[in-house]
């Protein structure tokens, strides 16, 4: 059974959203919509099925619409048209209260820049989701402690985020998201800001956790190696359109078009795992 169904989703950013959408619905591409309405067409006719309990990777370069797409699942961005069904419920139609419930109990998110509260301790950050949804403080902190322990940050509870390294901060971000015990975990370029070695560690840790947790994980990345490594399925976006969806094997052996092929070949040319966009050296 599919956990999430994305049906014919469009997203247009700009003052003339409706005009832009009308053009996009006619099938005009990103450039033409931009030229005629000065609106950015971020997503065009995206239809996806995401099964429960798997790691589903959304891949694309910057500007491909992947960060927009992942924000549809918890309503941080509303689509211009289309449906996003989570367990049959359309996220796009939820009101503020419904969205809040969804975010508090069902869907958590991990961010590229961590998004930790700088004025709270590691422990308070880890317990943030639980405190936000009104659970008793001692219980929330206990759960936070447990999850910090689980991501390998035992002993760092009283530290503040700026006292931690990048990898440790993202572990706090992961603990914060998992402490809410969500069914769906959204990860927006969660490891992209980390050093290559730390990044691999984090990927391993995520896969390790996933063995026990069986969450539905939606993972956005621009790095094909990362996608191949952790994804059960990979969806590739290009200029807001879905180019290919398939298992890592399918992507490697049967790239749907030149764009995907270039990704794959670039990887084949550099077998020592150099990502498509070089990570910041640290």
């Amino acid at each position, binding site marked *: 059974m599919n956990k999430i169904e994305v049906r014919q989703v469009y997203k247009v950013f700009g003052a003339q959203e409706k005009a832009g959408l009308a053009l996009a619905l006619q099938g005009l591409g990103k450039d033409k919509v931009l030229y005629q309405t000065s609106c950015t067409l971020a997503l065009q006719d995206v239809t996806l099925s995401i099964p429960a309990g798997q790691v589903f990777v959304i891949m694309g370069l910057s500007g491909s619409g992947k960060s927009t797409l992942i924000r549809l699942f918890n309503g*941080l961005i509303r689509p211009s048209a289309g449906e996003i069904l989570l367990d049959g419920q359309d996220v796009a139609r939820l009101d503020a209260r419904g969205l809040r419930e969804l975010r*508090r109990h069902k869907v958590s998110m991990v961010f590229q820049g961590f998004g930790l509260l700088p004025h709270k301790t590691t422990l308070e950050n880890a317990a943030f989701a639980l405190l936000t949804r009104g659970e008793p403080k001692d219980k929330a902190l206990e759960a936070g402690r447990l999850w910090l322990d689980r991501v390998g940050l035992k002993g760092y509870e009283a530290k503040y985020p700026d006292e931690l390294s990048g990898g440790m901060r993202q572990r706090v971000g992961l603990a914060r998201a998992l402490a809410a015990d969500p069914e769906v975990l959204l990860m927006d370029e969660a490891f992209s800001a980390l050093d290559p070695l730390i990044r691999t560690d984090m990927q391993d840790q995520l896969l390790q956790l996933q063995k026990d947790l069986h969450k539905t994980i939606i993972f956005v990345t621009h790095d094909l190696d990362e996608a191949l490594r952790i994804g059960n399925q990979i969806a590739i976006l290009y200029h807001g359109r879905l180019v290919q969806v398939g298992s890592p094997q399918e992507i490697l052996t049967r790239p749907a078009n030149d764009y995907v092929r270039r990704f794959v070949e670039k990887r084949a040319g550099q077998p020592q795992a150099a990502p498509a966009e070089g990570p910041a050296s640290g």
Partner: protein
Amino acid sequence: MFINISFAPVETAFREFVSHYGFIFDAIKGVLLQVFLVPLEDALRGAPPWLILLGVGLIAYHATRHWLPPLFYVLCLYLVGCFGLWDKLMSTTALMLVSTAICVVFGIPIGILISRSNWLRAIALPILDVMQTMPSFVYLIPMIFLWGVGQVSAIFAIVVYAIPPLIRLTDLGIRQVDREVVEAATSFGTTPWQLLLNVQLPLARPSIMAGINQTVMMALAMVVLATLIGARGLGETVNQGIANLEIGTGLQGGVAIVLLAIVIDRITQAYGMDARQRRQRLLKGGSFANFQRTTGEKA
């Protein structure tokens, strides 16, 4: 060549307004005087000076977590006492505290409102500009219509002059909070209130404290002018110096205001640092140890 434009009708309209709704302003005056200013001023003037000095020292210690600066501030205020101006210092302090409190009570919520809406901000900013650039004598006049010559008029003249920086800096502070942090907090289902109280206001705190600091400084700058419409305190001494051409008297009053300004400025600035910074200053070298640990982790 010029068509005649006169603001004189404004006066008629204003008089009309006051004669109809004067009771509202009388009520405000009554509350402000009887509940806040007079008791505070009496308490400050009635208390033994050593108690006040001790209080200032303790507050300054709480703010700075050092012993030396508070000692210096206490000395500053002691010096004002030596000028024979202790009573007036207390009057000015009471006036300034009440004005600042009003600024905070209105300024921070207004700043929060403005930060949430671009069009509100577009309306508010020009008004704040006018409040700040209008010669302050101009709005002393309507104050007298509303409350007569006295402390209350002085307070509101001070508030008009001193509130803009607080509104601006509250707005700015909230808008400058890292967008990803706000987005992350939102993604965990915060209500707008939770977001404001747990994320936006704490992170905007340094900016808001800078706004309060500015407000206090501007209130002090206004103290001398406010004596023209009946404020008591150190401004009287300055005005007396001007009226009688007594250089020494005027200078004493001026120096006393400066000393008070230094003390308040330092204390409010110290509160502008967040709680963590202050705690770290208490544990000597704490921040350096943290720096070492962080870099060590990365290497």
